[in-house]
């Protein structure tokens, strides 16, 4: 329709057709992403070595114990995957929020709410098999999404920063859940203090690798990776989410309502967080225990950052953190290093990811205009 008076200069028309799916899976620069991932993880382990030495152990022995404990046996491998599952799902929750321009620090609280509601439905409702477990998980997800709705609405319509509100709501969630399973609380078990009743067999995520604790939740988590990727990159709602995350003003000028998308994003993130809690309760503990989560929701932030917030990257980094977590038992028993050392390592990962951002900005600033 229009005459192009400035012809394209030395630009071969890019090939149309299907984009390489792998490119979207591992990010735009696949190889670079993998290198950065491995580099960051290794850097954290290397820098942690002198700290382990200061703690009085041989770093090499410690790492040998860490990896033998997590990968060296059937039980270790299973425990690694058990630990990976909630980290993976919660990591997806954090990364979806990041994609939409939100920093959801409330994943831990949402995870607790999701676990509590799923555990309660699992214990109280009477439903056929399969249906029961699905309903319990969906209930946990829905409750956590509703919990995330509060910061979502405050952010979208009142401009209250979500970091503040989600952190504060974490404490509300912890206190509320503790209260509900305290002596005399509404949901407390008759036989087990600080917990709900045991979930019924129909609501349990079945074990899949006897005699280990590995349960079907790992498959749910794997499916969620695929679904999240599909949602972000193959649906219009996912596109809107990414566009609002990229530039809310540009989105608004093009007919996307950033406030509505912000609410949807936060609730979706909350739902994933709730699923993480529900899977943990229905697959591992089989009842809701007060403070059952050792901080999965916080580790999930490191998981998402290391995974460069792509679903597949999150899966890989969840596995890395799963290794750390399950290997920490043997680390303590054999190398005499406190389990808390893995907290140091994950802290270092976050620090290196942050440093990486600065480094990348430096590099990109050198790009010509």
């Amino acid at each position, binding site marked *: *329709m*229009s*005459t*192009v*008076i*400035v*012809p*394209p*200069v*030395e*630009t071969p*028309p*890019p*090939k*149309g*057709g*299907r*984009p390489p799916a792998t*490119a*979207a899976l591992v990010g*735009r620069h696949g190889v670079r992403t993998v290198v950065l991932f491995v580099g960051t993880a290794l850097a954290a382990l290397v820098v942690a070595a002198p700290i382990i030495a200061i703690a009085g152990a041989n770093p090499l022995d410690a790492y040998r114990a860490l990896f033998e404990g997590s990968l060296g046996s059937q039980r270790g491998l299973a425990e690694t995957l058990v630990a990976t599952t909630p980290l993976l799902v919660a990591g997806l929750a954090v990364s979806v929020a990041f994609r939409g321009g939100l920093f959801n620090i409330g994943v831990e609280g949402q995870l607790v709410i999701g676990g509590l509601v799923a555990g309660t439905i699992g214990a109280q409702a009477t439903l056929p098999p399969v249906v029961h477990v699905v309903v319990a998980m969906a209930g946990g997800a829905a409750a956590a999404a509703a919990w995330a709705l509060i910061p979502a609405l405050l952010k979208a319509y009142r401009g209250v920063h979500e970091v503040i509100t989600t952190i504060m709501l974490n404490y509300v969630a912890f206190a509320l859940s503790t209260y509900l399973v305290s002596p005399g609380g509404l949901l407390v078990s008759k036989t087990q203090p600080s917990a709900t009743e045991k979930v019924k067999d129909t609501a349990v995520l079945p074990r899949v690798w006897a005699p280990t604790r590995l349960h079907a939740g790992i498959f749910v988590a794997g499916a969620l990776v695929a679904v999240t990727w599909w949602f972000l*990159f*193959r*649906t*219009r*709602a*996912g*596109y*809107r989410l*990414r*566009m609002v*995350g*990229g*530039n809310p*003003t*540009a*989105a*608004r*000028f*093009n*007919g*996307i*309502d950033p406030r509505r998308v912000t609410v949807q994003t936060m609730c979706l993130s909350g739902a994933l967080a709730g699923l993480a809690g529900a899977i943990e309760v229905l697959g591992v503990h089989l009842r809701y225990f007060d403070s059952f989560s050792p901080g999965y929701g916080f580790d999930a932030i490191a998981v998402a950052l290391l995974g460069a917030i792509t679903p597949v990257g999150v899966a890989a980094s969840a596995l890395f953190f799963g290794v750390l977590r399950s290997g920490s038992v043997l680390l303590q028993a054999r190398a005499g290093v406190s389990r808390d050392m893995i907290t140091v390592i994950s802290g270092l990962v976050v620090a290196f990811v942050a440093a990486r951002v600065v480094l990348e900005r430096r590099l*990109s600033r*050198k*790009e*010509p*205009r």
Partner: protein
Amino acid sequence: MPNGPVLRLQGITKTYPGVVANDGVDLEVAGGTVRGLLGENGAGKSTLMKVLFGMTRPDAGTIEVEGVERRFRSPADAIAAGIGMVQQHFSLVPDFTVAENLVLGSEPRVRRLFIDRRRAVSEVQALADRYGFRLDAGARVADLAVGARQRVEILKALHRGARILVLDEPTAALAPQEVVELFTVVRSLQAQGCTIILITHKLPEIVANCDEATVLRDGAVVGTRRLEDHERVPGPERDALEADLARLMVGRALPDPPARASTSGGPALSLVGVGDGERVGPLDIEVRAGEIVGVAGVEGNGQTELIELVLGVRRCRSGHIVIAGRDVTRLPVGQRLRQGVAHIAEDRHAAAVASDLSVADNCALGHQDRPPLARSGGRLSASGVQRFAADVVARYGVRTPSLQATVAQLSGGNQQKLVVGREVARRPAVMIAAQPTRGLDVGATAFVHQELVDLRDAGCAVLLVSLDLSEVLAVADRIVVMRGGRIVGEGRPDELDELTVGAWMTGTSEVPA
């Protein structure tokens, strides 16, 4: 005072990954002259000036200032050597007075602890008077007009001892009268022995004001030319000179300016008594199908708000907005866009692109809800997005490493081409083009103008909002002038000249100094 070169750049080479920004640039500037530096975006002007001002280090080459070879590690070194730079974006503290801004960092003290404001004011006023600047040293910068702020920037450079002054696109934000005043200042500086390097892509300014012009293309000097006085007079010689320089810049002849509209249809966009209750309106504007209406005005006189009102991003407190026969006053942005509105944003980083997302994703913005990009069930067709983006990129000559590259990796001109391509692809009934050529070079500007004209010829109503008066005069079929959020003048470009419009833009009284 004509004498040997005060500035000599030799073999300046600067490469960035994948691009040679400067390729062995030699530049010699004689003392007390005005040198014009011309070039398209990406020709290497900015890089060269960054090298000269110590903001980046060259890979090779030497800088000699007044016969002494210098190595600049930072702008502080360049300032110490007597080089001053006035950037497009000013770096002044708005709440400080002119004098306070100037002495910032080297304030005259009373008993080492307190600032001697009186002495600061008198020193600065003396400096301003010496160079014949119309400036009140005690005035708050926030109260000054853009032209006066620019004089403060120039004075700041002089105050720091600049003898070589680099002006980067100095007229971009000025009203015509302010431009005249700027060049008066430039000449008085020259008379006092300053050397001036003027970077601009507005050819007439170079021709009217420079002693010599150097043209950069693809990182290298493609020509330096002395300008004779008889060539400055409007006439065939001047036209030939401008055509010459333009050809050097772009590497090919420029197309003729677009023709005016012959006929226009019914109203496609009408604003009746529209206002936001604070910064703009009430005002009436009507744009007919097949017509380009140019909105001229000094920055900050309600143009931005007007655009936001039309698009529905700002709430309309009074009046009615009718687009393609439908009252959209109460409709949200998305529904207005579906009425056939497209929008080239005045600030693409703020309102048009998401820099961290891919070229493909950015091309799809605003198209994602329609086939072939949209698929049933809320799905997005990845291949549709890819094909559409490839089409925009190819048709508009967007230079990008790939469709998966982020928009941040593109140059400003290519980002703008992407936005123009994306918006034109909507086949709009109404095109809101806000500053569509800001920061674009001659070639890209001509291209965007042609796109707007093509749209008009295809029956689209175009509302062109621009701070560049010559652009409005060149392209629009009808001009309205905004001041203080209202329409203060209207006419056809052949009935108007820059000075009439300029007087409307700035008001009857003079610009406050």
